[in-house]
C-alpha cells in the first residue's frame, strides 16, 4: 500500500512539473541588416526548405557554391523537410528553427516580429521588390518570396486543338463547352481533379482576384461574403462544381494519383488541371521522361474577362525569413538577398521574378501576346482572412470544403448546391461579426 502511494506522488509531481511548460521568453523586433562588404560576412547558416527534391539532387548545393563566390566566408547548410508546415510549426516552439526559413502559413502576421528579424521598411523595399505587403507588420517587412506564381489551367495543347478549341475560353460556360468537346472528340479525360492528393483542390482559392480583376479582392474576402452571387470564390467553385457535375472528370476521383497525373497530362491522357505556373516545369520534366514534347504543356488563365481582357493574379510563393534568434543574421540576410536577386532560382523554375520590372518567363509569352493583365493583390487584410477562415473552420486554404463540393457535385453527398453555398456564406459572415473589425 505504502509503495503504491510513492508511485502516485512521483507521478503527480511529474504531472505538475510538465503542466508548467508551454510559454517561453520572447524577444521582439530585431533587424537583419544587409552587410556593406560581402567579404566580411561570415558564419554557418542553416537554411530550411520544403524543396526536398532540390536538396536530394544537389541543386541547392550548386546554389550555395555560387553564393560562396560572393560571400566566401559563409557556410550554407540545407535541411529539407518533407512535411514542411507541420514540422516547422512544432520546431518554432523553441528557438532552434534554422537561420533562414520559409514562413509557415500558421504563424499569425502579428507574431512575425517575435519569430523573424526585419529585412527593412516597406517604403524602401517595395521600390525594388514585389509582394512586400504580404509580410509587412507596422511598416517593416519580415520576408521575401524568391519567386512569383500565377494560378491557371495547365493543359495539353494537342488535345485541346484536336477537340477543335484553339482560343482560350472567356467565360465559365465556354470552358464547359470546350471540355465537353474534348470528351466527345478525344480519348482524354477533360479535367483531372486530383481529389485524393487533396491540396490541388485548395488551389482553387487562388481564383480570387482573377474573376473581378480587383486588387482589393482579399479585402473583399475579409469584409464581404465570398459566396455571394458573382463573387470570385463563388464563380470558381461553381465552375468546379459544373465540371464535376457534367462528368467531365476522371471516372473515380477518390483514387487519383498526383505523381502519375504529370506524365499522363503530358501524354495527352488528361487534358486539363487547375494549378499554377510553378507546376509547368514539373510537367515539362515529366513530359521529357515520358518521351513526349514538353512544348505541348500549355497554360491558360481562368475563363473570365473584365473589359475584354483576362486578368492573372501574381502572388508570392513561400516567403523566406531570418530567424529572430539567429546568431548569424548578416549571413542569413545575405543568403536571402542573393537567392532572391542573383541565384536564378526564378528562371530555373520558369517562374516570375520578384524584382520589379523583370521580364516574364518564356512560357508566359502567350500571356503577353494576348494582353493578359497581371495584377498584384493588396494583402493588407490577408491576416484577417486567415483568422476568419480558421475560426469558422471552413478552410479555404484546406482541401475538405472542396472535397465536399466535389462529392456533392458527383452525387456522393446529398444536398443542394445553393444550400451548400448559403451555409458557407452564413458561417463566414457570422464569424466576421463575432471577430469584430
Amino acid at each position, binding site marked *: 500500500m505504502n509503495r503504491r502511494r510513492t*508511485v502516485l506522488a*512521483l*507521478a503527480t509531481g*511529474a*504531472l*505538475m*512539473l*510538465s*503542466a508548467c*511548460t*508551454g*510559454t*517561453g521568453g*520572447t524577444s521582439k523586433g530585431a533587424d537583419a541588416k544587409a552587410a556593406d562588404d560581402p567579404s566580411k560576412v561570415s558564419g554557418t547558416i542553416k537554411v530550411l526548405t520544403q524543396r526536398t527534391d532540390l536538396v536530394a539532387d544537389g541543386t541547392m548545393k550548386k546554389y550555395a557554391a555560387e553564393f560562396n563566390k560572393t560571400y566566401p566566408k559563409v557556410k550554407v547548410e540545407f535541411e529539407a523537410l518533407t512535411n514542411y508546415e*507541420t514540422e516547422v*510549426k512544432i520546431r*518554432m*516552439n523553441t528557438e532552434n528553427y534554422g537561420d533562414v526559413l520559409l514562413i509557415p502559413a*500558421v*504563424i*499569425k502576421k502579428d*507574431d512575425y516580429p*517575435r519569430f523573424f528579424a526585419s529585412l527593412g521598411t516597406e517604403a524602401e523595399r517595395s521600390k525594388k521588390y514585389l509582394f512586400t505587403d504580404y509580410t509587412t507588420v507596422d511598416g517593416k517587412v519580415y520576408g521575401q518570396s524568391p519567386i512569383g506564381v500565377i494560378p491557371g489551367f495547365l493543359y495539353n495543347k494537342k488535345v485541346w486543338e484536336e477537340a477543335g478549341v484553339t482560343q482560350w475560353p472567356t467565360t465559365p460556360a465556354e470552358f464547359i463547352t470546350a471540355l465537353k468537346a474534348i470528351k466527345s472528340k478525344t480519348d482524354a479525360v477533360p479535367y483531372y481533379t486530383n*481529389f*485524393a492528393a*487533396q491540396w490541388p483542390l485548395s488551389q482553387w482559392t487562388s481564383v480570387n482576384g482573377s474573376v473581378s480583376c480587383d486588387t482589393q479582392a482579399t479585402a473583399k474576402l475579409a469584409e464581404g461574403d465570398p459566396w455571394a452571387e458573382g463573387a470570385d470564390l463563388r464563380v470558381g467553385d461553381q465552375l468546379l462544381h459544373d465540371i464535376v457535375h457534367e462528368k467531365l472528370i476522371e*471516372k*473515380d476521383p*477518390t*483514387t487519383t494519383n498526383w505523381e502519375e497525373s504529370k506524365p499522363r497530362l503530358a501524354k495527352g491522357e488528361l487534358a486539363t488541371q487547375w494549378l499554377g505556373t510553378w507546376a509547368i516545369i514539373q510537367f515539362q520534366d515529366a513530359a521529357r521522361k515520358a518521351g513526349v514534347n514538353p512544348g505541348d504543356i500549355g497554360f491558360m488563365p481562368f475563363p473570365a474577362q473584365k473589359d475584354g481582357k483576362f486578368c492573372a493574379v501574381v502572388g508570392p510563393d513561400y516567403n523566406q525569413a531570418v530567424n529572430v534568434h539567429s546568431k548569424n543574421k548578416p549571413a542569413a540576410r545575405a543568403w536571402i538577398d542573393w537567392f532572391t536577386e542573383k541565384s536564378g532560382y526564378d528562371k530555373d523554375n520558369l517562374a516570375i521574378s520578384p524584382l520589379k520590372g523583370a521580364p516574364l518567363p518564356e512560357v508566359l509569352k502567350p500571356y503577353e501576346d494576348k494582353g493578359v493583365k497581371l495584377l498584384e493583390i493588396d494583402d493588407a487584410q490577408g491576416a484577417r482572412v486567415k483568422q476568419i*477562415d*480558421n*475560426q469558422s*473552420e471552413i*478552410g479555404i486554404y*484546406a*482541401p*475538405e470544403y472542396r*472535397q*465536399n463540393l466535389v*462529392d456533392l457535385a*458527383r452525387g*456522393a*453527398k446529398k444536398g443542394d448546391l445553393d444550400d451548400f453555398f448559403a451555409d458557407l456564406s452564413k458561417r463566414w459572415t457570422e464569424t466576421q461579426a463575432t471577430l469584430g473589425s
Partner: protein
Amino acid sequence: MTDTTEKAAVKAAAGAALAAPAPAPAPRRARVWRGVTPWLFLIAPLALLITFTYAPIANMIAYSFTDWDGVSPELRYTGAENYTEIFTREDLFRVFFVSGYYLAASAVQIVAALYFATILSFNVRFRNFFKGVLFFPYLINGVAIGFVFLYFFQDGGTLDSVLSLFGYHTDHAWLGTPVSANTSLAGVSIWRYMGLNFVLFLGAIQSIPGELYEAAELDGANRWHQFRYIIAPGIKPVLTLTVILSISGSLSVFEVPYIMTGGATGTETFVIQTLNLAFRFNKTGLASAAAVVLLLIILVVTWVQRRLVPDDKVDLT
C-alpha cells in the same frame, strides 16, 4: 487498437515481474536494499512512462483549457469554453457514426480470428505456414498498407482485376460513396488487425492442457462440443480483452482512413477531425479538449464493460 495500450500493457507486465517480492527475512541493511532494489530497476521504465505518456497527457489537459493555436507564445486561459463547444456542436459528434462501421468490422474480425485460431490449434497440415500468413499483415507498416490498398481499390485495380477473373465485371468506385468507402476501409482494418487477435486467441487456446481434449473425445465430444465447453470458457479473459481493445480501437480509428481518403467522402473519424482542428485550423486548445473527451469515452466504455463482464478466474477442472 492503439499502440499505447499495448505498450502500457507490456510495461505493466515488465514492472510486475521486476517488482516480485523476495522471500526470507534478512538483516536490516539488507532489507532496506531489498526494498529499494526493485525501484532502482524501475527507474528507467518509469521515467520513460512518465516522460512519454503521462507528461504529454498532463500537457494536453492543460492546453484543453486554453485557446492556444499551437505556435503563438501567447495563450489565454478560457476555462471550460472548449468543452462547452464540443458538447454543444453536434457536428463534432456526428463523426462517431463512422465508428459504427469499424465496430461491425471488429465483430467480424473477432469471429474470424477465433475460427482460425481454433482450427489451427489442432493438428492441421501446414499449420505453421497458415499462422504466418494470418499474422503477417499485422507486421506491415500502416502507411504501406494504406498505399497498397489505394491501388487495390483503384478503378481497374487489383480488386476489379480479381473479380473479373471470376467473370464478374464491376464498374464500381469502391471509395466513391460514403457507405462503400467506409465498408472498404473497415475491410482493410479487418485484414490488418485480425492477425493480432488471432495470435492472442491462439496463445490462450494453446495454454489449455491437451489431456482435456483427449478426455472429452473419450466422452464422445465432437469438435463443436470441444469448442463450446473447453475452448470458449478457457479463453474468456482474452476474449474480453479483445472486445475492449476492439471497441476503443473502433472509436479511435485513424491511420487507414487518414492515409487512404484523408477523411473525404464521409470517412472522417473523430481522431482525423481532432487532427484537422489542431493542424488545419490551428485550434490546439479545442483539439486537446476533443482528445480528452475521447480518452474519457474510452475509459467509460472499458469500465462499463468490466462491470458487465467481470474478470473471473478461469477454472477448467
